[in-house]
């Protein structure tokens, strides 16, 4: 391998990206923009729990419960309603997701030491959120009703839940670091486009008749996109830290190192299959289908990993990076703790890059 030829390819590739505004946006700005969009799109925060109250008891006690709930900062109180019909129309219009109905006799039951009942109506079309909202509101009412517990009942097991690393269970805190895995697939898309563009525009035919070697060509394409990928990652991380206020508890240097490992794995794989593709549009579809879509659903970002699909999940670089990123951001983990995942990425990257070099042919057609 000639370092001078390698540098020649790298230098040329940097120029291509610098002069192609769309490519520049794709690798540098898009990750941060996508991260913001997806973070809001996949936000499961309770702050969106818009609820109404239908107080049919209208007693001092029921008013006290209403007061306690509407001043809660985590819940969005839309208003009080006077009929079930109003609840129905509110839900139909999507204005409320949840309604609390306090039946007549609520105060009387409490005062007599009996169990008072309230009704929660939830919009089941939004199943995941609704169950969370019901749980939250039930918990709030339970806390409020604590003084009215008639007899001290001793539970055989009392659960005291404490959530570590993300005590407020803010979805952005767990989502933003995980979504980094998704948005850092964009540099892989760019490198797949770069490889196929050279074939599509025909410049590969001339390049193939020069003394350039497989290793020089492959690394010459890879290295610039890793550099641009890191710049894009830095901006996305800044958004994570400063916009979503996710704490970076681990070392930024570790994180940078792990991102390089992730980029090696994703860019390596993208380069490998691009060597069998001759058009940019096919390359784009391949990245979407082989990377982006599975990385969303099989890597534990949105839905937990299906144990039966464990093998598939583990073969996706994103699965490992989700664990790494959440670990570094929220748990402050480092090398020894994340070793297996980082190693998995490095092995994937090295294998893909080696295969790309071995199968590389200076041929057209």
């Amino acid at each position, binding site marked *: 391998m*000639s370092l*001078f*030829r390698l540098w020649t390819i790298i230098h040329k590739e940097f120029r291509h990206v610098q002069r192609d505004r769309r490519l520049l946006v794709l690798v540098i700005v898009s990750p941060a923009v996508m991260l913001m969009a997806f973070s809001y799109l996949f936000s499961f925060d309770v702050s969106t729990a818009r609820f109404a109250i239908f107080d049919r008891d209208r007693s001092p006690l029921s008013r006290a419960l209403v007061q306690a709930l509407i001043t809660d900062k985590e819940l969005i109180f839309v208003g009080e309603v006077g009929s079930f019909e109003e609840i129905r129309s509110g839900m139909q219009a999507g204005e409320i997701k949840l309604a609390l109905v306090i039946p007549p006799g609520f105060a009387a039951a409490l005062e007599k030491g009996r169990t008072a009942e309230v009704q929660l109506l939830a919009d089941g079309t939004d199943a995941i959120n609704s169950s969370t909202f019901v749980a939250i509101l039930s918990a709030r009412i339970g806390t409020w009703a604590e003084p009215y517990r008639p007899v001290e009942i001793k539970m055989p097991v009392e659960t005291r839940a404490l959530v570590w690393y993300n005590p407020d269970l803010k979805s952005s805190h767990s989502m933003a670091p995980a979504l980094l895995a998704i948005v850092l697939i964009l540099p892989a898309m760019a490198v797949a486009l770069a490889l196929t563009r050279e074939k599509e525009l025909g*410049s590969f*035919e*001339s390049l193939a008749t020069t*003394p350039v070697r497989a290793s020089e060509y492959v690394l010459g394409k890879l290295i610039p996109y890793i550099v641009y990928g890191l710049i894009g990652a830095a901006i996305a991380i800044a958004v994570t830290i400063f916009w979503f206020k996710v704490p970076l508890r681990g070392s930024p240097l570790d994180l940078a190192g792990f991102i390089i490992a992730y980029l090696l794995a994703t860019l390596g794989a993208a380069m490998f299959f691009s060597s069998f593709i001759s058009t940019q549009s096919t390359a784009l579809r391949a990245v979407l289908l082989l990377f982006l879509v599975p990385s969303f659903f099989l890597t534990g970002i949105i839905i937990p990993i299906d144990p039966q699909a464990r093998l598939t999940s583990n073969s996706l670089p994103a699965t490992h990076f989700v664990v790494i990123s959440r670990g570094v951001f929220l748990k402050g983990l480092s090398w020894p703790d994340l070793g297996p995942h980082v190693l998995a990425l490095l092995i994937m990257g090295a294998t893909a890059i080696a295969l790309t070099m071995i199968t590389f042919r200076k041929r*057209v*057609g």
Partner: protein
Amino acid sequence: MTPTIVTTDLQRRFGKTVAVDHLALSVENGEIYGLIGPDGAGKTTTLRMLAAVLRPSGGSASIAGIDVVRQPERLRRLVGYMPQHFSLYGDLSVLENLTFYADIFGVRGAERRHRLDRLLHFARLEQFTARPAAHLSGGMKKKLALACALIHQPQVLLLDEPTNGVDPVSRREFWDILGELHLEGVTILVTTPYMDEAERCNQVGLMHNGRLIRQGRPEALRQLTPGQMLAVYTPDLLQAEAVIADYPGYLAHQVYGDRLHVFLDVADAAALERFLTNHDVRVQQILPDAPRLEEAFVYLMTQVSDA
């Protein structure tokens, strides 16, 4: 002395299509060899195999004794290849493209500066060094591509339709450059659809359906048309074509725009005019003419199609 470029039984199939069929080509050292033939004759496929960017399906080919299949990397410094389609980087400037190829070929330092200056001058591109290659005219793009293919001073040049889509002035200029290279002793294999360009070659090979049907010096090929030729100018071309085969001593004919080229055993213009007039063909003029390569080419093509 053995020829510089030799192919033996060279074949290339794409699925069921045979693009190059048992091709036996030989180009002598220092020659300009013109490969002519209709679209789809297999010219581009042949050049790609010689440039070692396409694997032959069978047979062998060598350049300066180096096998193009077994030792493709040894060819790189020896051969300059210019593909049919624009294959440089449109977003890089003229100078950046040239410098890129210089660097890839390891041409450095004072030598690089010297060659860049020379090639820019040679390709008449000194005024446009900063212009992105994508913004060059068709002729300038071709000249830049040639300059890039020459940066490592190859002994053999493979040019695939280098003047296709280029205006006549640039075309002439391009061939003047090839003439200079020829004088420097570079062996040039060039494909072209233009007969006037084929006339400027030392040797011409006619390809058809992947085979080489005839090769020789242009003046020798011109003699392949049978008999003598008369050019008939007439407004009744269709009628003339319909009856001409009945003329005694008729050998062949070709239509060129407003005239008919007739090949005859004996070129008797007066007799032909009488014959045509008798067959309701109004004759404006009949002139004796020397067949050009174009007539020879068309004649050979019809011979092949009829066979």
